[in-house]
């Protein structure tokens, strides 16, 4: 509202503030501390704890600073007898029913109640009656409850209602009997659920996997960047003896604010999973043998050299977009040293026709998403793919943005939007019709008809103050990804909207900048025309590639495959000849470039498990063994400096040069596969995070079809279906799912059981098995 400045006085100090700002915020800004529990800067004011009571001149009663707007000339005393007795009074009330057994509480040592009690509590307890006891509830595998410790501040309840966008927790009962719970026994399933641990000021909600495993004061805190989605959430690693005990958000308003997605919070458990690769392995006579690093590196170098046989083009590198800039850079350099340009990171992409952006990105800063007035999102499920980007979009929606999705799935969203659900082929039609609504005539747009909704969307994009057209992972995995880019670009351009990508992985944007995808390899070509030698970095062939069947065949044919991997798995065991144990999240230094093009570097914090080594070091030494020049960096920073020098300030950009008249590869008729990636299956690390795999978001491979489609095929819930794609087949259970459009089969990727199938999106046939 008013930006008018007022002058107030707090404890005798003159402070300038925006008229109407809450006193507690103004005091915080001025560095004057007022105790609080229910207040949280990202949540609505509830003013229920009464810890922040202060004296305001001319007001006889103490007022809550969290709910008192400042006005000019106001004189506030936070330490006056009136204020202090009020604060001490509240403190005493809060403690009468609190267990006061901090030594056995998981929160001990990092508890807001404990801290404030030191300042405002008394050392004598005047309450001699029995204390309240509340039965704990099982709210799922991620968050432990110890509800007797609850101080009813309702931060967790407000977090659910206001941030997570799902009212999963509530307060039932009156007075002393007021309890936090789910009402009906149920788990808390939001993809952001772990944040309730952080907002809870006491030990009522704690991390289930971490609980009772370490005390706060035994932990060393290190900064890092989350390794999954393209948000690049800033995190603190909490370590004990070099082991990551837990991950918590590090505040960065421009990126993750003060939140963290559950995936980023709990995936660290994967680091210590049983199938962690801790020793170099070499396949001898078909058997894997543990060897020392020297032997492994020599085997890798010799194998690659022999496979190339002097022809660099016989070598290819596939690097995960979850790899660091430094790893990708050195892999590229290594290949170049051997005469090959064949490197790619677009593992889940199927269509590589030219004209797609070379270095795609979000097209704006993350926080700018909130400011959008109209958004068209194509082929994306942000709540699953990038939960906190999804949260920014939700904020935009709550502020009134019109958000429209064109997807081959009905999403479960926590805000108002329009969802146009159609087949993969239909997605192009919808998008083209929006173009038609903008009076475009190019290519396939000319053949479509704009209905009212298309025209309305076209108008809203055009009239919005800020609009965006955003593509997501399902658009990139689409057989006509290039056409989608072309159409989206046309719509964005003619409506004045910003074109952007919601990239899938922690370093997708950075990888694009290094790989210069247009000039270098293209995954599909590198597998369709098998090379003799492959270098695989940080991926599992059957789970992380667009077309596992194709990949399987290529690696079978290859003479020599070197894998840098943090984990063992069947498909790597089958494909590789040498496996080099890779340091993973928290163990390696490096840099990720997030969706918005922010370069975020981090240092290694945890001790790499066993003999695992950071990828940049492995590649550096491999370069030495191969006697390639330019592999003498002493630390990660030098590698980064090289990258920066080579990119010479180049920025990501969404420049599209696609003729929207290309042949459509997705058949309009017949059954289409929808192979989106489940939230906790996205990469090798999260697939091994045990608590996340126990949540309701864990899925097993299945064929999800709607009832009508099932009926037409004679399939039913619980039955089995034979899924065929080319010569790849899988028999999977049938699940009736009305979020899937007719004539589509949602067979999600990255799940055990789908290894033999083909492209994530494409034609598929289903029969009763």
């Amino acid at each position: 509202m008013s930006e008018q400045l007022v002058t107030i006085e707090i404890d005798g100090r003159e402070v300038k503030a925006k008229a109407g700002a809450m006193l507690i915020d103004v005091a915080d800004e001025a560095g004057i501390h007022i105790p609080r529990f229910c207040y949280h800067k990202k949540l609505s004011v509830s003013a229920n704890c009464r810890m922040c009571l202060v004296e305001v001149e001319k007001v006889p009663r103490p007022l809550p600073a969290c709910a008192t707007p400042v006005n000019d000339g106001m004189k506030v005393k936070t330490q006056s007898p009136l204020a202090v007795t009020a604060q001490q009074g509240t403190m005493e009330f809060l403690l009468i029913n609190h267990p006061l057994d901090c030594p056995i509480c998981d929160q001990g040592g990092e508890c807001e109640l404990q801290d404030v009690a030191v300042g405002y509590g008394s050392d004598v307890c005047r309450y001699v009656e029995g204390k309240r006891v509340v039965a704990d509830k099982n709210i799922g595998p991620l968050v432990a409850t110890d509800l007797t410790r609850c101080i009813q501040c309702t931060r967790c309840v407000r977090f659910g209602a206001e941030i997570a966008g799902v009212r999963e927790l509530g307060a039932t009962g009156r007075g002393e009997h007021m309890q936090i719970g789910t009402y009906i026994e149920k788990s808390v399933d939001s993809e952001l659920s772990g944040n309730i641990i952080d907002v809870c000021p006491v030990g009522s909600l704690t991390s289930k996997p971490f609980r009772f495993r370490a005390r706060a004061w035994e932990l060393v805190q290190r900064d890092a960047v989350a390794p999954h989605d393209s948000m690049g959430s800033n995190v603190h690693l909490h370590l004990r003896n070099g082991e990551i005990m837990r991950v918590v958000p590090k505040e960065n308003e421009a990126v993750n604010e003060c939140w963290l997605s559950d995936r980023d919070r709990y995936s660290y458990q994967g680091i210590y999973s049983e199938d962690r690769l801790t020793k170099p392995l070499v396949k001898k006579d078909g058997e894997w043998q543990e060897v020392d690093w020297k032997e492994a590196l020599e085997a890798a170098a010799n194998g690659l050299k022999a496979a190339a046989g002097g022809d660099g083009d016989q070598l290819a590198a596939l690097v995960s977009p979850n790899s660091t800039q430094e790893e990708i850079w050195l892999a590229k350099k290594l290949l170049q040293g051997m005469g090959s340009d064949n490197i790619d990171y677009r593992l889940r992409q199927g269509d590589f026709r030219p004209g797609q952006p070379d270095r795609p990105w979000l097209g704006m800063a993350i926080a700018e998403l909130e400011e959008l007035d109209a958004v068209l999102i194509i082929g994306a499920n942000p709540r699953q793919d990038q939960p906190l980007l999804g949260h920014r979009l939700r904020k935009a929606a709550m502020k009134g943005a019109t958000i429209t999705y064109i997807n081959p799935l009905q999403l479960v969203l926590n805000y108002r939007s329009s969802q146009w659900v159609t087949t993969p082929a239909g997605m192009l039609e919808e998008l083209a019709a929006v173009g038609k609504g903008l009076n475009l005539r190019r290519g396939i747009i000319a053949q479509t008809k704009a209905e009212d909704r298309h025209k309305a969307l076209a108008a809203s994009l055009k009239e919005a103050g800020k609009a965006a057209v955003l593509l997501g992972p399902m658009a990139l995995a689409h057989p006509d990804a290039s056409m989608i880019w072309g159409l989206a670009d046309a719509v964005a351009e003619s409506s004045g909207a910003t074109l952007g990508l919601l990239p899938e992985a922690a370093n997708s944007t950075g990888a694009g900048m290094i790989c210069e995808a247009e000039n270098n390899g293209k995954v599909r070509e590198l597998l369709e025309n098998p090379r003799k030698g492959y270098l695989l970095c940080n991926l599992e062939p059957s789970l992380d590639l667009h077309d596992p069947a194709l990949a399987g065949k290529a690696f079978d044919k290859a003479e020599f495959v070197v894998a840098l991997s943090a984990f063992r798995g069947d498909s790597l065991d089958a494909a590789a000849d040498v496996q080099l144990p890779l340091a993973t999240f928290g163990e390696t230094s490096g840099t990720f470039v997030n969706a918005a093009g922010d370069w975020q570097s981090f240092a290694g914090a945890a001790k790499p498990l066993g003999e695992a080594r950071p990828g940049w070091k492995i590649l550096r030494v491999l370069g030495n063994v191969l006697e390639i020049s330019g592999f003498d960096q002493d630390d990660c920073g030098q590698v980064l400096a090289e990258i920066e020098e080579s990119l010479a300030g180049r920025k990501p950009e969404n420049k599209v040069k696609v003729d929207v008249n290309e042949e459509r590869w997705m058949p309009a008729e017949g059954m289409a596969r929808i192979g989106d990636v489940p939230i906790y299956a996205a990469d090798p690390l999260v697939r091994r995070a045990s608590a996340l795999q126990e949540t309701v978001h864990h899925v097993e491979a299945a064929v999800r079809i709607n009832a009508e489609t099932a009926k037409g095929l004679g399939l039913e819930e619980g039955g089995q279906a034979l899924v065929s794609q080319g010569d790849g087949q899988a028999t999977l259970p049938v699940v009736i799912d009305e979020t899937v459009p007719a004539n589509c089969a949602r067979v999600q990727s990255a799940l055990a059981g789908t290894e033999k199938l083909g492209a994530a999106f494409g034609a598929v046939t289903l029969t009763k098995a």
Partner: protein
Amino acid sequence: MANEVCLRFLGKETPWKLKNYQSYGGYEVLKKILSEKTPPAQIIEEMKTSNLRGRGGAGFPTGVKWGFINRDAPGKKYLVCNSDEGEPGTFKDRDILRYNPHQLVEGMIIAAYVIGANLGYNYIRGEFWNEYRRFQDAIDEAREAGLLGENILGSGFDFELHCHLGAGAYVCGEETALLESIEGKKGQPRFKPPFPAMVGLYGEPTIINNTESLASVPVILEKGGEWFKNLGVENSGGTKLFSISGNINNPGVFEVPMGIKFSELLEMAGGMKDGRPCKAVIPGGSSAPVIPGARMLDLTMDYDCIQKAGSMLGSGAVIVMDDRQCMVKVLERMSYFYYEESCGQCTPCREGTGWLYRVVSRIENGEGRMEDLDLLDDITPKISGRTICALGDAAAGPVQGMLRHFRDEFEYHITHKKCMV
């Protein structure tokens, strides 16, 4: 001079029927206002003149409250009537709902006209099932007769009225908890400001008045603000419904002029049972501090006088106790009420009410210690004035009153482990 306003038709043939209410002159004021299109500002002035102070307990001048809403501002506005009547000892609104529901409907239509509300709710105490039925019947009759709904009596003014039955929580009588409850949420008071006149039901400007306040409106406008004011005394205009109960011969509801002597009221209620002496009186519902009987007999029933005596007129619920009543037991019962009825959101009330109850209960059960009295003295001011709603003050008031006037009884209880009486 009794029963002149809200209960004016008491004793007449079924005055809750529309036909009869109309035949006694009901809805005439409304008709006049709507046909003459009386300027709302003029009605507000008349209400101010009448000196009607909100009968829900807080005593805020009704005319002033109505003036907080800008009738012509765009957007929805709501009118809400508070018939939750949860304050122990209070049972006056029930009689209005029972015997004169149409006068409340008429008052609500007029109030809605004044503030520009097209939708209203009457929030009725959960236990008042029969009254709820009767009020609903009145609404239905009025709607049938074109007195509610669209284009009332051809005036172009629309007003729809709904009943909302509560579910038994005392705190839902607090106006903002009541709004939450109507919205389908847990009945918890909201932090104020913003006040309901700015941000009320569903976030829109809302006026909330007590049943008695609204039911008084048609008579005030019929006979004039001046007339009403002159029924009462300085600062307390008009008549008031008192629900008087306790150790008296004839408990019930009496509509009498403000400023009436307590002794007169007591007499109307048949005097003390068995001729026992009046030991103590709670003059304004359980939240009001107790006043010793002897003192009370000298007081008049109006806002100022009762306040000067250290208590409050509140909802006009008068609880009379004779010398057989143990004040410790009485307080224990009241403290238990607040302990059970605290909504639980703010710390001093949630934790403090339980603490108060347990200490008082300990004393009552012969397990008290002398320090407990100081403890009570110390805790109560840490509750009152520090909570989101006035339930915190309501819980602290009775304890403070009892200890002020009957401390010796508490001491006796502690030393002798039994009642003094």
